[in-house]
């Protein structure tokens, strides 16, 4: 394994208007590692995730994937990541399976049976053919989690994934994270919730 393999965030600065949100944040995540990002509200945890996945360009510093700046390898880097934002990012008028077939289908060819298996894994199998607007917030979170699994991506970027999950859901997520790391996957989790078995913690201060 080369030393550059994985994700490296190198002295990233972001201003939002007059506010200096990220002040030279650095971190690295290597294959098999889980980084827990913590900090009070408004310290730029979501901003950091958005910078990493390329939705937001930092004013200074850079993000590297396997040693290459992500700016330069944007398309291939984005194919390697699964980003679960704070909102579940599901279309209310489509069923769970249609939602997944679409977003996953843009990244890799996928069959319905495969998606059903992922939804079963996250405990959302009973909801397959219901329009997502009829699901509860926790059920939507489980569908969004099934999408992260179905994307089969090496890097997981999860923003407050524990929100709205019941105790079973919380245990399931921890299990899934452990499995992902076992496969050599990387994960970066923003959470106020305690995340078990993390490799490292990043504290963002106000």
């Amino acid at each position, binding site marked *: 394994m080369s030393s550059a393999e994985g994700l490296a965030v190198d002295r990233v600065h972001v201003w939002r208007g007059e506010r200096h949100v990220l002040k030279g944040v650095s971190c690295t995540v290597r294959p098999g590692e889980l980084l827990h990002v913590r900090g009070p509200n408004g310290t730029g945890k979501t901003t950091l995730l958005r910078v990493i996945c390329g939705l937001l360009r930092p004013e200074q510093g850079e993000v590297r994937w396997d040693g290459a700046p992500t700016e330069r390898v944007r398309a291939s880097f984005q194919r390697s990541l699964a980003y679960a934002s704070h909102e579940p990012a599901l279309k209310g008028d489509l069923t769970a399976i249609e939602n997944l077939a679409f977003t996953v289908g*843009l990244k*890799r060819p996928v069959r319905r049976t495969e998606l059903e298996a992922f939804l079963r894994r996250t405990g959302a199998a009973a909801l397959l053919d219901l329009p997502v607007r009829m699901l509860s917030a926790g059920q939507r979170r489980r569908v969004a989690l099934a999408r992260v699994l179905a994307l089969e991506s090496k890097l997981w970027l999860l923003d407050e994934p524990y929100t709205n999950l019941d105790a079973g859901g919380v245990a399931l997520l921890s299990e899934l994270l452990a499995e992902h790391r076992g496969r050599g996957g990387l994960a970066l989790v923003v959470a106020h919730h305690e995340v078990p078995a993390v490799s490292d913690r990043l504290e963002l201060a106000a």
Partner: protein
Amino acid sequence: MNDVQAWPAEAGVGAGAALALIVKRDLCLSFRRPEQLLQPLVFFLIVTTLFPLGLSLELSTLREVSPGVLWVGALLASLLSLDALFRSDAEDGTLEQLVLSGQDLTLIVIAKTLAHWLVSGAALVLVSPLIALALGMPVGVFATMLASLALGTLTLSWLGAIGAALTVGLRRGNVLLSLIVLPLAMPLLIFGAGATDRALADLSTSGALYLLASLCLFTSTLAPFAAAAAVRIALE
């Protein structure tokens, strides 16, 4: 370790398949909300019915103004649905998932705009003969009218994609969207209504139609890039 096998998403999906998937999904979403599909069409019908009430019920007078009436009605009706082009995806977070799909954002904009045109512009073109008949337009003019409206609404969708992308971050962007798009749509109205007018007067229409076609080509090559850049800024 064979990375592609371990992480299947890294191989990616071809541009053609992605384009078809986005168009299919947007059409599916539109048909789940049939009322939103029908609203611009009903608006088109009502606006064009207002003109005879305000002007004159004389068929010869109506025939003279019918190209302009049809065109203004179609322009306004297709503006109605433009606002939703990116907004609903931006609000529920699916636009971020699209942008992060590893597919070219320009391609995503092209697919979404085409899907939008199919359910707005193309639908308006299909109902326009009904209105044209009611306004006393001779059937011989229909071919020109349909061709000009098809080119015009498609061009408007491209222009509208830029406007919709620029206003996607605003809470109430639809008025601003109209203010951005309508001035740009003036040449369309001039040549589109002009082509139909000339057909009514039995003159050659090819000049105006070629101009419309060139405007359509021009916008379809440039607008996706401009709209993609605007979407990227809106997400920041």
